[in-house]
């Protein structure tokens, strides 16, 4: 069985681009994760616990393949203009996977709208609420991670966001945090908590309490 060290070591030698089925895919990077959130690709972000329909799974996989292989400028432009890849994804699938999502002829409004961006209106409202409540407003997770890595390494933003495989970027981010004396602790397990507060001791205290009464 592979342990944590094996996974970390493998991540460090992971190749950048991959060739799958004749399609060249960029490495899964911080930028990929950001796009996955924007495109609501819960298969890749792990968000949401509802079972996806086959159609939705297909939409997500096709979109993912498109956003990892189309030129970055094109993907980013699609995010900004709100078309966000759906027609392009269909072109992509027709040409590359020989499958048209609209092949059954049905209109699929949820697909058309599925890529529409959640524009910043809602977020602005929450920012104003935060001001009134005096809450600390944090930068976005990606800006925070990129800033942290770039501050220590001097690497360019574009490289960190689009070219650095996420499995490695996360390790460098961890290095930056550790160099700033921010330590990551191993998550507790049932066993580690048992070792600190064993059931036998709790039982002994139960008996002490009974005797006291």
């Amino acid at each position: 069985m592979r342990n944590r060290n094996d996974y970390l070591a493998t991540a460090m030698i992971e190749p950048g681009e991959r060739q799958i089925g004749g399609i060249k895919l960029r490495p899964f990077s911080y930028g990929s994760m950001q796009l996955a959130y924007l495109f609501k690709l819960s298969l890749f972000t792990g968000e949401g616990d509802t079972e996806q329909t086959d159609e939705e799974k297909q939409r997500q996989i096709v979109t993912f393949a498109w956003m990892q292989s189309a030129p970055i400028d094109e993907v980013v432009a699609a995010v900004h203009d709100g078309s966000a890849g759906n027609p392009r994804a269909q072109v992509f699938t027709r040409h590359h996977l020989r499958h048209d999502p609209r092949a059954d002829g049905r209109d699929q409004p949820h697909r058309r709208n599925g890529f529409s961006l959640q524009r910043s209106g809602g977020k602005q409202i929450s920012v104003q609420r935060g001001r009134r409540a005096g809450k600390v407003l944090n930068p976005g997770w990606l800006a925070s991670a990129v800033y942290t890595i770039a501050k220590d390494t001097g690497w360019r933003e574009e490289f960190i966001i689009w070219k650095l495989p996420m499995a490695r970027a996360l390790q460098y981010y961890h290095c930056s945090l550790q160099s700033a004396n921010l330590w990551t602790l191993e998550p507790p397990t049932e066993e580690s908590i048992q070792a600190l507060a064993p059931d036998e001791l709790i039982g002994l205290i139960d008996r002490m309490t009974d005797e006291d009464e």
Partner: protein
Amino acid sequence: MKEGTTLSIVRDHDTKPTESRNTRLIAAALSSGAMFATEAAYSDTVEQTPNGAKRTVTWLMDGAAKLSFEPIEVAESITFDEFRKRYESLDWCEANANHPIAYLRAMNDQHNRLLDKVKTMRPMLLIRKGKRIAIVPSGSDEASKATRDQILSEF
């Protein structure tokens, strides 16, 4: 606890607080005007040690507070019935607060109050990890277990 408070620590190990002489000592001291050093002046912890479980009961008293005693006006000799009459009369004890009988009554009442309170307080679990110490609820109920797990997960 305020900064600069003088602490007097009263502690014993592996003795039930309900049977401990220290509990009587604290009751006597409180009856004589002594004060706790803090609102959380009592702790009862159980720790797993290489020699087995170790229970420690600690009282924190204000070491700077003065206890003042005034002599009664005249020496007296009384019968048991008179002693009993005075001892059982709270009004008499309050009116004669410096009398030894009032002290005895106050100490007894104070001790009972302490015992009633102590019996409602389950020992806490004391856990050491290096130089760090955590004192967590020791209950088997869900709420205690959740709090314990939460604290220990960050310990």
